[in-house]
């Protein structure tokens, strides 16, 4: 198949079709996306051999997908923002059931006030649920990750569901070239579905039964072990995909110009592309800066973080979300990964771009440049929550919330 220009949403839909998904369930009202609309159209026109289940809520959408997947087929759904939050209970049930499943998340802000634009609050809100959570930078990566998600989720070392995050509008509604393999190529690369158990009218399994406290504890333990094992699986799948289709991204993280870098940017999602341009701008100015793009939020890439930034002079994280009362998510995870090493380097946790506030490359460059200059001038800097405010508010409010309170 030649390269096609597709929105991120269509890239997801084509990937689900090529993975031979047999059941798609969805609540077809806002905040649903054209992912499910495209799948519904393909099923209706006989271009996809699958069953579409129209349900009355996102909670039911995932429950139906879980039921179908438990019965032994590839099942798929997609949601966004408030739909994902409404689904949250079943998100946990799915991971706890250890049923492989793939769901696309169009990452968007959460109300109130209403805002439909890109933000990572919705997807990071799922971080503790036992799902593998990935997030793409480009439409091509959205497609590749969706195909890979089935192989990762269905690996017997993992058997956990996986989310594929694509930034709302920035990827979901933007057209860009996507190179899609032919059906037979995907068939050859993607193994037959495997799962720990299959529910049929004849089988005698009980799902979601009461367990002893001790057994409950051990099932939690097993999810954590699967998450740990998933790290190798993700790397293997990324490598194998690269060997077959020519695109590898580096596993749980992508490393960009880090070889001789003394300072590091940590960022996730589509704006990592703008941040890369900022790294290029700063490199031209002589700043020794590199970038680590987080592709998987769960399992968190602890080893990669330590490997790349453990001996860094300074790390600056960019979060499009915040844990109110604490810090941005990437910042907290990064510091927690570094452990005692964190005390040796300078850090700044930037919170920016909430609700889709645009951050162009030049602005990334400005913030990173300021951080590096400050470290070079003052020695060690510890600045865990720096709010890079929208430009019209920058002169009115301080970037550190503590100063407002004082």
């Amino acid at each position: 198949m030649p390269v096609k220009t597709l929105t991120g949403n269509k890239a997801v839909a084509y990937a689900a079709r090529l993975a031979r998904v047999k059941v798609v369930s969805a609540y077809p009202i806002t905040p649903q996306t054209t992912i499910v609309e495209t799948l519904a159209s393909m099923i209706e026109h006989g271009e996809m051999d699958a069953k579409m289940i129209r349900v009355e809520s996102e909670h039911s959408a995932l429950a139906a997908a879980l039921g179908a997947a438990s019965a032994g087929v590839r099942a798929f759904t997609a949601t966004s923002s408030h739909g994902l939050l409404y689904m949250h209970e079943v998100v946990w049930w799915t991971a706890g059931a250890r049923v492989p499943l793939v769901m696309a998340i169009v990452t968007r802000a959460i109300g109130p006030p209403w805002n439909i634009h890109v933000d990572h609050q919705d997807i990071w809100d799922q971080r503790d649920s036992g799902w593998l959570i990935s997030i793409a930078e480009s439409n091509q990566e959205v497609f590749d990750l969706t195909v890979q998600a089935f192989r990762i989720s269905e690996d017997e070392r993992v058997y956990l569901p996986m989310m594929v995050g694509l930034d709302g509008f920035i990827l979901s509604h933007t057209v860009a070239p996507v190179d899609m393999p032919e059906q037979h190529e995907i068939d050859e690369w993607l193994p037959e579905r495997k799962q720990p158990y299959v529910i049929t009218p004849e089988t005698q399994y009980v799902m979601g039964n009461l367990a002893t406290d001790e057994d409950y504890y051990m099932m939690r333990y097993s999810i954590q072990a699967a998450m740990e094992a998933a790290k190798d699986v993700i790397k293997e799948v990324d490598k194998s995909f690269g060997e077959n289709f020519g695109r590898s991204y580096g596993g749980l993280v992508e490393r960009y110009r880090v070889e001789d870098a003394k300072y590091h940017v940590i960022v996730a999602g589509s704006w990592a592309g703008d941040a890369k341009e900022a790294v290029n701008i700063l490199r031209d100015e002589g700043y020794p800066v590199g970038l680590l793009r987080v592709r998987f939020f769960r399992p968190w890439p602890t080893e990669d973080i330590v490997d790349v930034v453990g001996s860094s002079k300074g790390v600056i994280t960019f979060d499009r979300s915040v844990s109110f009362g604490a810090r941005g998510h990437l910042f907290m995870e990064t510091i927690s990964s570094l452990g005692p090493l964190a005390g040796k380097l300078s850090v700044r946790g930037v919170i920016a771009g909430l609700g889709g506030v645009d951050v162009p490359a030049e602005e990334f460059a400005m913030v990173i440049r300021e951080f590096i200059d400050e470290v070079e001038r003052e020695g060690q800097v510890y600045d865990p929550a720096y709010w890079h405010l929208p430009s019209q508010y920058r002169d009115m409010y301080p970037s550190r919330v503590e100063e407002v309170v004082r």
Partner: protein
Amino acid sequence: MYVEIIFHGRGGQGAVTAANVLAGAAVREGKWSQAFPHFGAERRGAPVRAYARISDEPISRHSQIYAADIAVVLDDKLFELVDIVSTVKKDGVIIVNTAEQKIDLDKGKRNLYCVDAVSIAKELGLIVAGWPVVNTAMLGAFSALTGIVSLESIVEEIKANWPGKTGEANAEAARRAYKLVSKCGV
């Protein structure tokens, strides 16, 4: 080669579609491209904008476009509502759909080009919901002036998007505008 393009139109005029078709045409030539609407509320008739990027290399940027190399304006009356000139670089190009040949750009000396896409649409019977279809003609004018994407690729992409007579009429609109676009302004 790396260019940023902004389309100014009214909701319903097909600015977003024009950006998408341009991006698709660029990919047909082995280039990298991107196209996206300005993310906000859209209403029929209200000013809207869409963006496109075209490059010889993969495109990393995802932010909005604030100073385009080229602006395509689907309705000359938009100059009264939107500060179009400020969305284009000082040495940039502005291509306007207008029946008048005298648009006064008092805010700067951008290179201004005009084509009467409304008349082209009417001649070809390209009327949808009472409005002349001008977006495809403007892509022909874009090709003639910039050479970034060939007329052939634009025609192919139009036909791929709209099979049959509709595609052929839109392709013809692009061909005519390609020939008719000319320098204008006072």
